[in-house]
């Protein structure tokens, strides 16, 4: 319709004008003004949002509830090799199933979450904190075990869906383990009972030389 020389430029100017006026009527940050005014407005991060890994512990005491067993699978799998683990030893120098040192260099970490996927103990998970800047290039960008350990409640707060799945898995594993233990215990008990019964039968077959045999 309108197609004289220069009309394309006018149409373009209509678009910019519409966007300018529209930006003043865009309250919900939905359509046009998507900028977040950062320190005042914080983004609502989706559950899956990830930045750097952290270690989950159960209960109240970080050291006691630590799920990590220092198996070093994540250290091996980490593509940029940003994890450093040293296994703890007890007083006798015997290796313990927990890390003495667990460091993550977040200046190297690329947040790929392969450590999370490879951890068989549901111990390492992705955090969503993003204010990690610091004035110290070397010291404060290596995060140590103490800072890395965060409670399961925290994990539930940042990523409830996945945390629930993890908890369910652990619970299932625990139940399974308990059941297995119970079965094993019952088996042992049954075996013993059988042995006892057999012994009793044998005893019964033999003359009762020692009648007061306590039951196992």
């Amino acid at each position, binding site marked *: 319709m309108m197609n004289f020389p220069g009309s394309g430029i006018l149409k373009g100017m209509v678009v910019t*004008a519409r*966007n300018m006026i*529209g930006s003043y009527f865009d309250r919900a940050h939905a359509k046009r*003004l998507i900028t977040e005014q950062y320190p005042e407005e914080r983004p609502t991060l989706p559950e899956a949002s990830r930045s750097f890994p952290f270690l989950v512990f159960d209960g109240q005491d970080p050291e006691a509830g630590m799920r990590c067993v220092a198996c070093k699978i994540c250290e091996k799998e980490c593509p940029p090799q940003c994890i450093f683990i040293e296994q703890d030893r007890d007083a006798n120098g015997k290796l313990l199933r927990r890390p003495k040192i667990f460091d993550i260099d977040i200046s190297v970490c690329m947040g790929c979450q392969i450590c999370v996927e490879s951890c068989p103990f549901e111990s390492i998970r992705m955090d969503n904190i993003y204010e990690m800047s610091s004035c110290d290039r070397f010291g404060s960008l290596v995060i140590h075990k103490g800072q890395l350990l965060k409670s399961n409640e925290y994990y539930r707060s940042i990523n409830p869906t996945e945390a629930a799945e993890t908890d369910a898995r652990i619970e299932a594993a625990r139940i399974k383990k308990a059941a297995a233990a119970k079965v094993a215990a019952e088996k042992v008990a049954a075996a013993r009972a059988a042995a006892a019964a057999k012994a009793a039968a044998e005893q019964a077959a033999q003359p009762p030389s020692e009648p007061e045999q306590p039951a196992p």
Partner: protein
Amino acid sequence: MNFLENLPLATKKFILDLVEWVCGWFCSKLGIQLPGWVMPALLTLVSILIVIVALIAVFMVMFALMSVFERKILARMQNRYGPNRVGFFRWRLCGLFQPVADGIKMLTKEDIVPRGADKIVHFLAPIVMVAPALILPVILPYGRGMVPIELSSGILFFFALGAGTELAVFMAGWSSNNKYSVMGAMRAIAQMISYELPLVMSAVVVALVAGTLSPNGIVEAQGGLSFGFLPNWFVFTPWGFVACLLFYIGALAESNRSPFDLPEGESELVAGHLTEYSGFKYAIFFMAEYVGMFAINGLLVTLFLGGYQAPFAFLDFIPSWCWFFGKLAFLAFTMVWVRATMPRFRIDQMMQFAWKLMLPMSFAALISAATWYYTGRGLLGWALSILIVGVPYLILGYFCFTRRHTADNRRYLFSE
């Protein structure tokens, strides 16, 4: 509202009276008998100083405001917020203090002069740039009886001083000893010389009809209404509209603004002739460009938009200088708007546009204006002048520029 209307002039008069009274008081105290010529000379000097200070203050404030509003408007057009942080202590004031922060930053930055640069010319270039830019606004009539310097050939003065900008740009580009700078300078000069022609030609059109080169005379020629409803501004005539558009485009090019920002085209020439400038020298270039832009927009307001005149008599209660600055602000806004919309010309296209479209169109506007003038400004004149500018426009537009691009209907094949 007479008070507001007369406020600037009354202030000036008050200061002059004050100076006269203080001098007289001192002389009588000291018992000195001054020769008769001293007091008028002193008062002339003071009145010149008042004008200089007022002009510089007004244009600096406008520059500061423009630098923040341009960014904010541009941001809004691009769906951003723009600068909204810098304020006064806890109060952010929508980022209005941004220019202050920018100024402090520019002042405290290191002034780097490249080792291979021609130091003297490199130093002189910003001065040559800013001096004409600050002198340019003196001939504009800001309000009724508010012309800082009344010149009978003020329009000519404007263009004569505007020529200094080219020199400064060349000096900046050449002295920087940088290939980008030289290319930017060459582009700038080619562009400014090419666009000066249509610019001057469209001003000539107005001078022809108004019969004067004095800005005040041109504004006065635009008073009243034609046909009883249309303000007599030149932009509301066919030839005037065309000349106004040409002047506006020329103004965009002269002030190196998008889409004619080739000299500093950052995607090609990093920053053109400004590449090697830093710190306050850069700020001075920036300032000169903005003040030059205001000045040329002010000239546009004077030539085509009726200067300080209100469009209708019943709007006269708004002071005349408010009308002038309002129109100026509107033009500045449209320049930002254009900048937000358009990509940049290529150098050969820019030259083609100037020489093959704008120059013929300005001649057409000249003929059209003459026809309009000599047929007695009636309906016949209107029809004829529309014809005289419309036909060349359509011919040039379709056959020289857009035929190649839009007439070959691009086909896009689709394969399943």
